[in-house]
């Protein structure tokens, strides 16, 4: 039998002026289970808390109800107070008789009556409360960053600088990501390589960072503080430890037909290759699809030339398991496939290129050595048409959609950059940019765009291109100028398509492994759009860079740092103290239907086959739900979806809430 004490606060006159606090305390004494009640001017004061503590000791109270201000105000205060004298903090309930009673009602009789009802509901609830203890789980002090682009590198560096071990898993043979492929960056026009390659080196050399390049995450188990991750190390056929990155093998390799990914397939590379000169790790990789030895069994040229003996044709995919405390998704983006846009003739003419291809054509390390030459005939283009919003901002009403409904955010700015850089090198080039809107919210962004128009004389035309027709070595561009209200026909030498960006294809399966939620566009969802923008709703999973939504480099770096600080905050703890108000499943009642698993936003529920000793002395294997209290956040979605009521929520149990309902309906 519970012994409950009720403490009614006056809150000065805040409560006492409208609620007859004496009457509430008096009424409390009549409630079964209540053995003590008192009223006091300020319950939250030292003296008020003392009153509560003394009563607990004196009357051996097992539960306490404080009738005062909102529990959002002082619940924690009173919990601490009762805990100080040995009562479980969850054996306390607050009846909100200020915000939801004295402050909103004017008539004393009415307010007092309601206060008594609220007190009775709180007593009804606390009578059913059970002591709760928050569980603790140890934290593995190691972080995993998935993706080695600028987002992943920055996150890893920031975490590592704080003194924690970080692993980067990168699918490509080198880290660096898309930024390494860029020529210059807007709006400062500084060289992209010049800022990203030192970062790559820093990452490569950091003693706390380990890079798993040419690797993928294949399985994630566990939960915040205790993830168990399986990493697949794809067979590289070159021993990373032995390879010196001298590049001799790449010179000798007779297979030279593999498309060079780094140059967007604009030229070819050898089957054994180092993606680019500043690659980190600077280690060769054999492309098994093109290697003659691996496909036909003969050759072995690279093995012969390699002085380090690093070549190993027998290599197999390896799987390693590593424990982590936190995981950061930094899977980045890709440009959409623009070939469905037949009207832009991307598949019909090599001179129609994507922006990223154009980036490589401008780059000194690119296929043309930095000379802007048309891919078809190697001549300098005189007229270039840039088309904006290819696949961005498309309507999503129909089922079949070529593009994306969102604005890709960076295209306006990089197109201005392309136009300016082109004009810089080849001032007599005619450049047309067809735009729907030019979006330049950012520091020095609009100034940058205006420079392209005013200083460089780039023709910005409000309107879209209707079609591009390759004809007689030219690209006939038909477009509308919405300002002059005329249709334009331009004979262009090159057309550059600013394709929409989309999340990397690996993000969706990763999200499934992480039980992290995604939006319909496959961008990771943040835990709160305003207040928790770098956290995933899944505890211990953080978001960095484009995988969360389109953003430019400075924003990416900022988010990377923010994600890192969240990770550091987590890893700095030795133990995670959970919220004890979590769901729990009564295994004897659970029928294993998995409905709860499907509604849990945190992936806190798993199913286990467990052996049960039945009352008739037989054993039975049953599939039952298990809640991981470290992951559960206590929303209660599962409790309602459970038909048998096997799933219940600590602190807000079915019985407790129903007792409140009963008390309030009296």
């Amino acid at each position: 039998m519970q012994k409950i004490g009720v403490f009614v606060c006056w809150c000065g006159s805040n409560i006492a002026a409208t609620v007859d606090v004496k009457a509430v305390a008096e009424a409390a004494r009549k409630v079964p289970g209540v053995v003590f009640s008192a009223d006091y001017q300020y319950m939250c004061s030292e003296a008020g808390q003392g009153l509560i503590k003394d009563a607990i000791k004196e009357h051996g109270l097992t539960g306490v109800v404080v009738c005062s201000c909102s529990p959002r105000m002082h619940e924690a205060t009173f919990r601490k107070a009762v805990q100080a004298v040995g009562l479980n903090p969850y054996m306390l309930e607050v009846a909100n008789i200020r915000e939801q009673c004295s402050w909103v009602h004017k008539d004393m009789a009415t307010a007092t009556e309601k206060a008594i009802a609220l007190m009775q509901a709180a007593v009804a609830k606390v009578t059913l409360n059970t002591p709760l203890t928050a569980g603790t789980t140890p934290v593995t002090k190691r972080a995993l960053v998935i993706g080695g682009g600028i987002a992943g590198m920055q996150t890893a560096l920031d975490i590592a600088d704080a003194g924690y071990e970080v692993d980067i898993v990168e699918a490509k043979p080198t880290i660096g990501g898309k930024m390494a492929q860029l020529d210059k960056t807007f709006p400062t026009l500084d060289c992209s390589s010049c800022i990203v390659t030192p970062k790559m080196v820093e990452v490569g050399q950091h003693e706390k960072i380990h890079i798993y390049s040419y690797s993928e995450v294949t399985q994630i188990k566990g939960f915040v503080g205790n993830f168990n991750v399986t990493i697949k190390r794809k067979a590289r056929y070159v021993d990373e430890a032995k390879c010196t990155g001298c590049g001799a093998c790449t010179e000798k390799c007779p297979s030279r037909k593999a498309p060079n990914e780094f140059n967007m397939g604009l030229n070819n590379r050898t089957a054994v290759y180092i993606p680019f000169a500043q690659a980190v790790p600077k280690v060769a990789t054999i492309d098994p699809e093109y290697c003659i030895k691996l496909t036909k069994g003969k050759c072995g040229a690279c093995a012969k030339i390699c002085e380090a003996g690093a070549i190993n044709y027998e290599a197999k995919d390896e799987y390693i398991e590593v424990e982590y405390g936190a995981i950061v998704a930094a899977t980045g983006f890709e440009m959409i496939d623009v070939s469905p846009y037949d009207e832009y003739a991307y598949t019909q003419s090599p001179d129609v290129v994507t922006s990223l291809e154009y980036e490589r054509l401008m780059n000194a390390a690119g296929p043309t050595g930095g000379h802007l030459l048309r891919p078809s005939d190697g001549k300098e283009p005189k007229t270039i048409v840039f088309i904006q919003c290819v696949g961005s901002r498309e309507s999503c009403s129909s089922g079949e959609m070529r593009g994306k409904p969102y604005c890709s955010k960076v295209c306006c700015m990089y197109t201005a950059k392309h136009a300016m850089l082109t004009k810089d090198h080849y001032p007599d080039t005619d450049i047309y940019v067809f735009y729907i809107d030019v979006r330049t919210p950012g520091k020095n962004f609009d100034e940058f765009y205006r420079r392209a128009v005013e200083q460089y004389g780039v023709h910005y035309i409000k309107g879209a291109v209707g079609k591009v027709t390759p004809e007689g070595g030219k690209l006939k561009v038909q477009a509308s100028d919405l300002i002059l209200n005329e249709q334009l026909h331009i004979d262009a030498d090159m057309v550059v398509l600013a394709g929409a960006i989309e999340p990397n294809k690996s993000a969706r399966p990763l999200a499934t492994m992480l039980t992290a939620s995604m939006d319909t566009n496959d961008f990771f969802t943040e835990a709160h759009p305003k207040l928790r923008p770098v956290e995933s709703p899944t505890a211990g999973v953080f978001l960095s860079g484009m995988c969360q939504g389109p953003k430019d480099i400075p924003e990416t770096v900022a988010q990377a740092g923010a994600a890192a600080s969240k990770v550091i905050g987590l890893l700095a703890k030795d133990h995670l103290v959970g919220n004890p108000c979590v769901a729990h499943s009564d295994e004897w009642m659970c029928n294993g239907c998995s409905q709860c698993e499907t509604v849990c936003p945190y992936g806190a529920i798993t199913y286990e086959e467990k052996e049960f000793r039945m009352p008739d002395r037989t054993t039975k294997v049953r599939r039952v739900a298990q809640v991981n209290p470290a992951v559960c956040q206590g929303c209660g979605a599962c409790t309602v979806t459970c038909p048998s009521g096997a799933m219940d929520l600590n602190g807000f149990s079915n019985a407790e809430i129903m007792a409140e309902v009963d008390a309030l309906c009296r």
Partner: protein
Amino acid sequence: MASTYTVTKEQILSISGVDPQKCMRCGKCSATCPSYDEMEYHPHQFVAMVEKGEIEKLMGSPSIYKCMSCMACIQRCPRQVEPAKLVEAIRLGVIRQQERNHLKPDDIPALLDPELPQQAIVSAMRKYTK
């Protein structure tokens, strides 16, 4: 009756099933239109003008007969606004204003040609009855 029959924006929207508010003013319809130079009002203007309710102006313009219904604008519109359907709806509006074109169901049997495909009859009914 004919003289008082006015075509409203709502009618055009309901005939065409088009929501001009979906338009983001990119002009790709006009960029793609093969009849552009022949037209007084261009496809993107159809969208904007219908939205503003300037139906009379469009109905009086020869532009509506310049549209060849090639549907390129429908095909290429990134937001599925379907300007050609608006042009067709305006044309229908004009037809419906001309009462003599109004076909009564009773008149049809006499006009029926056994060779006439069923589909043509149905589409004629659609077009010439209000």
